[in-house]
C-alpha cells in the first residue's frame, strides 16, 4: 500500500496541473478531490477511472481482481470504438468468493491470468486491483510479476482500488501504470518526423476517426493514442513520438508531463471540439513537429487544409444559424470540455444560459469568461432539483449534459442531448461540430415537444 499512497501523493502534487499550481503545500497534501460526502456523493471510484482510461486499449485482456460487483455490474458499458480487436470488450474478472476473502485471492488471480493467456493469447494482460482484494492484502504487483515471468508476457498491475479516491484520480493512476510498466518497453518498426501521440482521447463513438483522416492527409502519423483504439504495441513504443497533444487535461496530464520529462516529447493542451479549437490543434501539432525537425512546408499544408475545412464547415453550419440563433442552452458537463463546446455553440448563435465549472481549473474559468462575458453564469454545483426547475420554468430551451441528468430534463419535458460518454454521435473534428448542431436542431425541433406538453384532456380547465 505504501507505494500506492506515494503514487497518490505524487499525483496530488502534479506540477503540470493548473489547479495544483494555485495551491499551498498543505492543500496539495490534502489531495485534489473534495472529501466525499456520505449520502450526498455521486460519481465513480478510482478503479472506474483507471478502467475508463485504459480499457480503450483494444487488444489486451482487462482482468478485474475483485468481487462480481466491480466488473459484473459494469462491463462493456462504454462506447470506445476499435478498428481491430474486440478483446477489450470481453469482461474478465476473478469474481472472488468468500473463501478467497478468507484465504486470500492471489492463487485465483494467478490461475486466472494463466486461463486468460491460454484461451485468448493477448499481447498483454492488465490486472486491476479493487477494494476487497486490497483489504485482504492480495499483492497484485507480486502476482503480476510472477505471472509475467512464468508466461513470458507483460502482465501489468493497475493498483487502483476504488476506495483510494474518485474517478479522476483513477484516470491518473491508470496513466501511472502505463508509465511504470508499458511505455518505452517496445520499439516501433519505423519512425518518421511526423509521429505524434494523442493523450487522453478515448475514441468514444469513434471520435478519433473524425480527426485521423485529416492527420493522414497531412502525412502526420498517430504513433499512439492513449488510449482510444490503441494497440498494446503502439502504447509500448509511444516514447518515440516527436510531439504530443493532450486532449483531456484532467485525466492524463501526468502522462504528458512525464513523457516530456523522460523522453523529451513536447506537448500542448488542445481540443478537437469546436471549429476554431480544432484548427488551433492542427496548427499546434504541425508547429511542434516542425520545431522537432519536420520539414517546414508542413505548416503551409496545414494552413491550406484548415482553410479548406473551415470554409466547408462554416458553409454547413450557416444553414443552421437561422434555426438555432438565440436558442438558450444549459450546458452541464464534466467541466473540461465546457469552453470548447461553448465556443462551438456560439458559432451558430446559441446563447449559453449557464455552464457547469465544477471540475474546471481557474484558467478554464477565465476562458469561459472570455467567451461568455463577465456575467457568465457559471454553475459550481447544481442539484438535480434546481436543474429541473430551471428547465421546467423554461429558462433554457435545451440541456446538454451527461446521462446522469438525462431524466431531469426529459421529465421536465425539455429537449436534452447527451454530450458525455454514452452519446451515440461523434462530435469531434469539423464534421463533428456539424453533427452536434444537427443533433441539437433535431432535438429542439422534434414535433413531440408540443404533443407531450399538452395537458391530458381531464386536466383541461372547462
Amino acid at each position, binding site marked *: 500500500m505504501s507505494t500506492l499512497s506515494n503514487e497518490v501523493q505524487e499525483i496530488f502534487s502534479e506540477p503540470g496541473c493548473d489547479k495544483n499550481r494555485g495551491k499551498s503545500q498543505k492543500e496539495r497534501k490534502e489531495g485534489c478531490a473534495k472529501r*466525499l*460526502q*456520505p*449520502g*450526498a*456523493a*455521486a*460519481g*465513480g*471510484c*478510482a*478503479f*472506474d477511472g483507471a478502467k475508463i482510461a485504459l480499457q480503450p486499449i483494444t487488444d489486451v485482456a482487462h*482482468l478485474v481482481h*475483485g*468481487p*462480481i*460487483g*466491480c*466488473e*459484473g*455490474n*459494469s*462491463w*462493456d*458499458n462504454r462506447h470506445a470504438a476499435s478498428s481491430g480487436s474486440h478483446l477489450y*470488450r*470481453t*469482461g*474478465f*474478472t*476473478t*469474481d472472488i*468468493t*468468500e473463501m478467497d*476473502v478468507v484465504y486470500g485471492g492471489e492463487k485465483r488471480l494467478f*490461475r486466472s*491470468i494463466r*486461463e486468460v493467456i491460454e*484461451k485468448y493469447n493477448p499481447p498483454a494482460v492488465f490486472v486491476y486491483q479493487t*477494494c*476487497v482484494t*486490497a*483489504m485482504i492484502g492480495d499483492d497484485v504487483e507480486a502476482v503480476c510479476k510472477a505471472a509475467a515471468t512464468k508466461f513470458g508476457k507483460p502482465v501489468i498491475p493497475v493498483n487502483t*482500488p*476504488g*476506495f*483510494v479516491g*474518485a*474517478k479522476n484520480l483513477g484516470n491518473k493512476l491508470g496513466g501511472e501504470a502505463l508509465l511504470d510498466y508499458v511505455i518505452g518497453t517496445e520499439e516501433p518498426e519505423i519512425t518518421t518526423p511526423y509521429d505524434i501521440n494523442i493523450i487522453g482521447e478515448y475514441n468514444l463513438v469513434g471520435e478519433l476517426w473524425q480527426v485521423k483522416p485529416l492527420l493522414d492527409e497531412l502525412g502526420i502519423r498517430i504513433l499512439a493514442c492513449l488510449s482510444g483504439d490503441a494497440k498494446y504495441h503502439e502504447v509500448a513504443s509511444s516514447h518515440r513520438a516527436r510531439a504530443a497533444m493532450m486532449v483531456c487535461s484532467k485525466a492524463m496530464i501526468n502522462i504528458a508531463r512525464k513523457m516530456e520529462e523522460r523522453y523529451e516529447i513536447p506537448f500542448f493542451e488542445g481540443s478537437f471540439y469546436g471549429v476554431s479549437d480544432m484548427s488551433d490543434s492542427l496548427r499546434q501539432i504541425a508547429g511542434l513537429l516542425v520545431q522537432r525537425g519536420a520539414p517546414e512546408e508542413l505548416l503551409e499544408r496545414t494552413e491550406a487544409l484548415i482553410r479548406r475545412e473551415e470554409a466547408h464547415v462554416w458553409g454547413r453550419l450557416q444553414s443552421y444559424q437561422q434555426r438555432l440563433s438565440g436558442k438558450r442552452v444549459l450546458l452541464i458537463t464534466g467541466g473540461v470540455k465546457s469552453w470548447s463546446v461553448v465556443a462551438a455553440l456560439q458559432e451558430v448563435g446559441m446563447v449559453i444560459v449557464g455552464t457547469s465549472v465544477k471540475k474546471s481549473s481557474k484558467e478554464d474559468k477565465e476562458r469561459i469568461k472570455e467567451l461568455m462575458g463577465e456575467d457568465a453564469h457559471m454553475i459550481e454545483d447544481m442539484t*438535480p*432539483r434546481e436543474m429541473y*426547475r430551471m428547465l*421546467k420554468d423554461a429558462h433554457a430551451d435545451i440541456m446538454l449534459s451527461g*446521462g446522469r441528468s*438525462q431524466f*431531469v430534463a426529459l*421529465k421536465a*419535458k425539455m429537449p436534452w442531448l447527451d454530450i458525455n460518454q454514452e452519446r451515440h454521435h461523434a462530435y469531434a473534428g469539423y464534421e463533428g461540430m456539424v453533427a452536434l448542431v444537427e443533433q441539437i436542431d433535431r432535438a429542439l425541433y422534434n414535433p413531440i415537444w408540443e404533443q*407531450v406538453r399538452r395537458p391530458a384532456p381531464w386536466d383541461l380547465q372547462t
Partner: protein
Amino acid sequence: MAAVTRSRKSCTVNPLKMSQPIGGALAFLGLNHCMPVLHGSQGCTAFGLVLLVRHFREAIPLQTTAMSEATTIMGGMENIEQAILNIFNRAKPEIIGICSTGLTETKGDDVDGYLKLIRARHPELESVAIVYVSTPDYKEAFQDGWSKTVARIVEQLTEPTATKLANRINILPGNHLMPGDIEELREIVESFGFDPIVLPDLSGSLDGHVPDDFSPTTLGGTALNDIRGCGASRLTIAVGEQMRAACEVLQAKTDVPYELFDRLTGLEVNDRLMGLLAQLSGRPVPSKYRRQRSQLVDAMLDGHFFFGGKKIAIGAEPDLLWGIGSWLAEMGAEISAAVTTTDSPLLEKLPVEEVVIGDLEDLEMRAVGCDLLITHAHGRQMAERLDLPFVRMGLPTFDRLGAAHQLTIGYRGTRDLVFEIGNVFLANSPDHTPDTRARVEREIDVRTPATAH
C-alpha cells in the same frame, strides 16, 4: 432432471451475474419515498446506478456511504451516520434502505449495532424507517440480494394484526418480474375483487411515468403504511422461488399463509392462478381472462410448428431461467444450454441435461449450433460471434427500449411471448434451395445400371 454443475474456471469471462447489493437496492427502489444506500465505496453505487438507469431509462435514486481506505479500516459507523443524516435532511425519505457491500463486509462492520447507536443519538430520525441488509458482493448474486432484502423489509416493518381483511391479498413478486408484469398481475388479482398490496412494487416507481414534480427519492412503489399492513392480508401470493424466504418470514410474524407460484409463464400455471383466485373470492373467472386463455390456446396451436425441436440456449438468473425454460419446453422446444448465476432448488428440476452456474463464456461454448439465444443484453457479443438469433430477457437490457414493459406472465403475456419468439424462429427459417434435401448415404446406388452377375 438436470445435473447442476459449477464452472471450474478461476476466471469469470463475460459475466452473466450481477452483484447482491444492487439486487437489494432494486428491491428498495420498489418502495415509495425510499432512498437506497450502498454501504461501500462510491464506485459500488455508481456502477449499480448506471446499470439500472440504462435498463429502466429512469433516474435512479441510489446513494453511497462513500467509504475511503481510512474509514474502511476504522469502521464505517461515522459514514453511515453522516449518510443517514444527509439523506434525511436533503431528500426527506420515509424509508432508508442500506445494503452492505464486499468492502464493508470484509472489514466486518456491525451495521445493526451502528444503527442502534445512531438512533439513540438522533431522536429526530424516529420518523424514518431504516432497513439494513447484509449483501456482500463476493457471495451469491443479484437475485439473492432482492430475495434477502424483501425478507428483511418484511421482518423489520410488517406488524402482526388480530384480524384479517377478507379482500386483502399480498403480492410478492420476484425480481424477474418487470413493472409490466406486476401491473398485469395486480390487474388480474383486482379483477376478482381483491385489494392487493404489492411488495416491492416496481410498477409504481420504475414503470416510466412523468411525475408532476422532481423528487430525490423514489416516487411511487409500496407505501410504508401498506408494508406495515401486510399482516392483515388473508393470503400472500408470491411469484418466484426466491420469494419463499420472505413468505415464510411474513407467515411466521403475522400468520398470513402463502401460495408460491414458481412461475406464471405458460398455460397450466395461469390456470392454477385463476383457480386459486376464483376459489378465494367465490367469484367466477372474469370473461376477459376466459377470452385471453382461449387466445393463448390458439396462439399455441398456431405457433407450435415453429417451436418444435428448436434448440435454445438460455443464460438467466434461476427464477427467470425456470420460468422461460419450463415454458419453452412446454412449447416443444429443447433447452440445449442453460447457464445461471446462483443456487436454487429449481435448477435440478429443469428439463435440461445440465445447468451450469457460470458465465456467458460457458454459455457461448454450449450455444454453438442452437437456434436461439435468450439472455440479458450482454449476450449481444456472443450472438454476433455465433450468428444466433437473440431475444433479450432479464436485467440489464440496455440496448432496447421498453425493458420495463416486457410482459412475460399471465395468459396475455404468454400469448405475446409465443408470438415474439415464434416470429424470431419464423424470420430465421432456412431458405429453400435445390440443395435442401438432406444428403444421406443410401445403401443402393442407382446412378449407374446394376451390373449383371
